């Protein structure tokens, strides 16, 4: 099954490579990986989306922990957590489709970030599921380009 793993790592060059290389060297699935600084400049948070049975996920968590540059590894999958992804999508625009597109932007609480005579670029934030649905709904209008951020995640509540 799909797992969301949050990893606090040292904010040093090569850390992302160490993590990604470990996944490929051991044949683990790596669906998405995103990384950014945290409130502490020396620490980055990495969000990893992966798949595997209990044995594989157990190994992934242990192998992540074993890397010297990882500080904390948390499997958020079975904990209350927030996971978000950013979608930037550019669509073909025409008189006939305009109305429907704007309606969908409202439904998905998206934002128009660029608009030209024949194209429109929209940003949408949401759970990976919502992002998938958004893309499906926009597809009939003609997608020109898509950029997805990969998931970022954090536990919910006091911890």
């Amino acid at each position, binding site marked *: 099954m799909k797992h969301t793993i949050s990893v606090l790592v040292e904010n040093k060059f*090569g850390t992302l490579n160490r993590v990604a290389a470990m996944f490929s060297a051991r044949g683990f699935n790596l669906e998405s990986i995103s990384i950014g600084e945290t409130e502490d400049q020396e620490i980055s948070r990495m969000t990893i989306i992966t798949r595997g049975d209990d*044995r594989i996920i157990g*190994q992934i968590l*242990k192998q992540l922990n074993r890397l010297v540059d990882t500080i904390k590894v948390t499997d958020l999958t079975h904990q209350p957590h927030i996971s978000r992804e950013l979608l930037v999508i550019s669509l073909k625009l025409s008189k006939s489709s305009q109305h429907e597109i704007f309606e969908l932007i409202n439904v998905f609480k998206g934002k128009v970030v660029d608009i030209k005579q024949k194209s429109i670029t929209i940003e949408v934030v949401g759970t990976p599921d919502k992002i998938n649905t958004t893309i499906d709904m926009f597809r009939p209008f003609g997608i020109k380009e898509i950029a997805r951020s990969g998931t970022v995640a954090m536990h919910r509540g006091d911890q």
Partner: protein
Amino acid sequence: MSTSGSTMNGSEIFFECLRREGVDTIFGYPGGALLKVYETLYDVTDIRHILVRHEQGAAHMAEGYARATGRPGVVLVTSGPGATNTVTGITNAYMDSSPMVVFTGQVPSTMIGNDAFQEADIVGITRPITKHNFLVKDVKELATTIRKAFYLATNGRPGPVLVDLPKDVMNSECVFNWPESVEIRGFKPTIEPHENQVRKAAKIIAKAKRPLLYIGGGVISAEASEALRKLAIEQNIPVTMTLQGLGAFPGDHPLSMGMLGMHGTFWANQAVNNCDLLIAIGARFDDRVTGKTDTFATHAFKIHNDIDPTNIDKNVKVDLPVVGDSLKFIEGIIDNLPKTKTDRSEWLGEIEAWRHQCPLTYSVDENSLKTEFVIEEVSRQTEGNAVVTTDVGQHQMWTTQYYKFRQPRSILSSGGLGTMGYGLPAAIGATIGSTARPNVLFCGDGGFMMNIQELVTAAYYKLPLKIFLLNNHFLGMVRQWQELFHQEKYSFTDLADSNPDFVRVVEAFGCKARKATNPEEARAAIQEALAYNDGPFFVEFQVIKKDMVFPMVPAGASISEMLLDRLNPKTMV
């Protein structure tokens, strides 16, 4: 010793840090990126630099030194090709968990990434084969980085650490400050085993009727052999060991069952499949040990102690994991065992019966030589007390069968990686580490050629190393597989037409050399070699070509299906 607070350049700081880490020997080879370091080294008198002839040799020597002494081996090589030549040695140390710190020169930091002369991204190259690695970008970070490197190499599961030293960093100056302690927030190995788990394990061990200790190299690196001996003997629990675990328990003790796995003893593998409790300590359920994992020790409750949590449930699912130091684990078990003992005579009797059913045997013919005979004879003449290094192949497996290791840190062998060419340099490193016990190398004619240049090192430093070449003029283990599983197509494994005259080659390197072709000559040559201490002593044993290592578990088969004999390869036990 220079005091903290004085201004020094990077090279001076480097040697000062090595001193403070207690390093007495480094294995190295100079080059452009290291000129400043070697300039400083010229006047260093308290650290011995061993000049190797190939950087791969330096890496294997450092590992041999580490395994024989328990102290981390140190390598110093230049950038680019110097660094890349250590890659096999580093991988070998990583697979076999040997503590090692490799220092590589690097082009000036301002030129990194420009494809400069002798530049290689060695930090990138070695990321998956080191426990950790560092690029030092500022001389102010040098002392702390070296401290961290040694700390990482020797704490938790031991392993190699690489430190890349750009030329300009070693030239620039700063105030030297020695960090008294190390803090690495992402590295907190579990040393103390969980008390409840230990208590549970002790309870299960106390009751088990048919327990078996399965011992790996972790017991040796944890210095837990004494404790293991006490546990096994007091509780009457038979002991089987992995390649790296041999010597953890005396091979001549009745409870010792020798090695298990692919070329393990018949009785050890039978015991694995018939035990009701398997106690794995410092071992990692390697595929050469388990064979087909679905059928491995299926009747047994499995306890697994290891310092590295990733080893738990990696290959074989266990019932009671105990992460932590193996010495603390074994001592904890001993403390928690009740005074009353379970009667295990029936179990030991069964094992004795298997031992008699299929003992290790070979025939002796007065006119030809067998590797088994040579190894057993060396074992006899050294009374099982030598530090034995092997290369990789048939002779390596026969060493596990016929050399009766009586103490820990006695077998140095490339297990995980199976590196041909490991033997000679590793044996040199071990001999440099200590000559308190006889140092013996068993090597095949294939692997011997792979790092033969290091004979210069052995000869130049007058190392009393006994080099025993088992020459069958074949890549014997590959030949064995070709005969058994590949329609006897001996594809590129026959070396008879291409091997050099080894005795003449070795003599040209400045070593004593003998040749033996029958048991009588072999006995005499071994005796002469063991008595000679003024430098390396080489003996070429002309052994028969078609000898094969049995018993054998074919790759991927269950360890209960052993080939016992070439004459009847279809009959398995």
